[in-house]
């Protein structure tokens, strides 16, 4: 019970931090309002999906360095196929491709027994190359409804569609999984592989499943990328480090077994709003990149120190 509260306390704390940051934004720029929140949510979309995917593999005790590359593959596939294939079929196909790529990563890790970090580093390049082969320069296009689908508000003004999309998609995939035996197996594997194995968990299959889910989230990330820009972009964006930072800031312990998806997604907004604040404060966008990078590295370092201490006790 106390553990449950403390886990929620982490997310609650993050929400508090987020509110403070929003208030700061408002002070710096009194004009900041609903439209500001709307564009913030829209910009956060790909980050949120990359983070959700990364969170799942970190929970199972691994890491996937190829998230940004998988998103690039999905984005260019969507941009190339959709004009001819149509929207719905295109979306479904891209989602299937994403899940397949993730599952390939997982299967390679399980079968070759090469450490996850090495396999996914190699796959980072393999998927990046694949994306470039599909589309050498930014191009292609997506149906208009997809572009409009992520902008603006849903029913009531003040509820950005992008925010709703994140909430609905993550909830629809994650909540049933979390409740199921497979979800339990994911947590068990990440927490203590041997105890999980002795309790009858099929560890290899669980791992492939987790990487597959990660790929699926990356597909959503790729789709949101094309929807944001309207074209496919083959060069992977800066989502890897950002997702790792958001995952650890969101209370998921590197090494696995602990945390959920809510915390990391709130953490994405925390990290994004820092950028907004710096921009509104008139800071050079390049300096903003430096600050952002430093914050992310600092977050990961801090998380590592905390994890280390926990292990040694």
């Amino acid at each position: 019970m106390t553990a449950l509260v403390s886990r929620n306390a982490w997310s609650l704390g993050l929400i508090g931090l987020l509110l403070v940051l929003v208030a700061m934004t408002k002070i710096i720029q009194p004009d900041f309002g609903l439209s500001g929140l709307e564009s913030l949510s829209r910009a956060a979309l790909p980050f949120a999906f990359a983070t959700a995917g990364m969170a799942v593999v970190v929970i199972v005790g691994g890491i996937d360095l190829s998230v940004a590359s998988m998103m690039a593959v999905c984005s260019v596939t969507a941009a190339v196929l959709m004009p001819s294939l149509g929207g719905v079929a295109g979306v479904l196909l891209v989602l299937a491709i994403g899940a397949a790529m993730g599952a390939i990563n997982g299967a390679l890790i399980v079968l070759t027994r090469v450490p996850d970090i090495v396999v996914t580093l190699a796959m980072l390049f393999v998927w990046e190359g694949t994306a470039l082969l599909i589309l050498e320069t930014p191009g292609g296009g997506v149906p208009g409804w997809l572009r409009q689908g992520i902008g603006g508000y849903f029913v009531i003004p003040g509820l950005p569609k992008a925010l709703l999309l994140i909430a609905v998609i993550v909830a629809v995939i994650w909540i049933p999984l979390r409740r199921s035996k497979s979800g339990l197996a994911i947590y068990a594997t990440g927490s203590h592989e041997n105890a999980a194995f002795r309790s009858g968990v099929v560890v290899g299959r669980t791992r492939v499943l987790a990487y597959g889910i990660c790929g699926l989230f990356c597909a959503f990330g790729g789709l949101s990328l094309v929807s944001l820009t309207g074209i496919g972009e083959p060069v992977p964006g800066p989502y890897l480090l950002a997702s790792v930072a958001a995952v650890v800031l969101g209370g998921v312990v590197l090494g696995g077994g602990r945390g959920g998806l809510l915390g990391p997604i709130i953490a994405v907004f925390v990290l994004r709003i820092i950028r907004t604040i710096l921009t509104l404060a008139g800071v050079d966008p390049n300096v903003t990149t430096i600050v952002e990078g430093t914050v992310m590295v600092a977050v990961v370092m801090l998380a590592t120190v905390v994890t280390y201490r926990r292990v040694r006790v």
Partner: protein
Amino acid sequence: MLTDNTSQPLLDAANVTKSFGAVHALTNASLRVGVGEIVALMGANGAGKSTFVKILTGALHPDGGEVIIKGKAAHVGSPAEARASGLVPVYQEPSLVPDLSVFDNLRLTDTPVEAFIDFVEKLGIENLSLNAMISALPLATLRILDLARALASKPDVLLLDEMTAALPTDLVERVLSVVREAADAGCGVVYISHRFAEISAICDTATVLRDGKTVGELKIEPGVEDRVVELMLGAKIDLGQREVGKESRIRTVTPRLSVNGITAAPKLKDVSFDLYPGEVLGVVALEGQGQDELFEVLAGFEKPSDGSIEVDGEPVTFSHPADAIAKGLTLVPGDRADALMAERSVRENIALPFSASIRNWGPLRQRHEKSRVAHAIERLQIDTRAQGEVQRLSGGNQQKVTIGRWLAKGVETLLLFDPTRGIDVRTKRQIYPLVRELAEQGAAVLFYTSELEEVPLACDRAVVIFNGHVVDVIDASKADEQTLMRAAYGLSKTESAA
């Protein structure tokens, strides 16, 4: 208490064999457990107990022989299948997932919750919340929960592997009575423990393993202890004689190493002893009595939670093995794999400490290094035919390399943790005189061994550790195996600890 011999046994493992490369871990192990029977599985360290347990629970495949559960050959490929076939193990390390709640752990194994709660209450754990995180519960509670989970799944055979180790006495009593109750209800139990008190309290028979073979099945009755000890020891291999007249006489007033009330989680509690220059002090203990923690503390890997260490009369604290080495305390760990760079050469392995300090990062002192290494190799008679990679050497030669590292550096206080585990007799015979010789030259040696017959061969005195405490100090002249074995099992006190 009577076993029904007419009915088929619940568990029948016959003629099980298992080898790892050239090492024959099990040559002919058998175990039968009938309905309602509690069988103690016993054996000294290295008898093959843990390999046998792994085969019974499906973690390892036997090379030969069969494991039959309830008359069906159990082709267990994994712990999950062993569970399904009716055998449920409970280990010293609970198989509960730390970051899940109690309830989720039950869900993971499809354990009925009500039956689980019944057993938890019977075992005397009160106010347990099913939502509690496993990682937030104390180890003793976890063992109980693991046992309750196993019992709740209504196993045909329950395997308890040292699960009472380090449990408080009242809990042990409850565990024993609940296990007895389960057996009376028809469950078969394999009970593994180092404690005779527990075994005579609940077991019906004892099956004794030695050198990978089942050497006896005894009914538990008063006085059976001596018979069990005798069976566990068996006929010995001749390990040679201690050379007479090679007693070290260097005894100063100040001990080289003085350990005062050292306590270290989880198992070591308030241990004190002195080690003098010129002395080989044996440490006698069954597996997991706190000796691992003791050596880790002395070598600087771990900080004790209480107590102090003095070297040559001066108090010291270590925060890194480098600190211990600076004070002359050098460790040869129990697992050679921990100490060796498997794919590097003999020379590099022996010379590693030479480069450790930042002052020695520059050019290697080739000539100095070569002569030191050659000297150590010669003194230890290391077979250097495959010296390009340490992993290609035999186990005995690998062990010599780990000792040679400190010979080359210069020995002051040598901490030897079971240096003869799993190596050939010839090498063993070389190691005892070497240890004596080092002591004779003024070194102090702390020598833990899992093989009791080594104590009179190498040591001057031996401290006996049981359950984290020093329970006895025995002089080498009186340290015959029977005495040591009884002391190690906490059976008798020959004299009060010095």
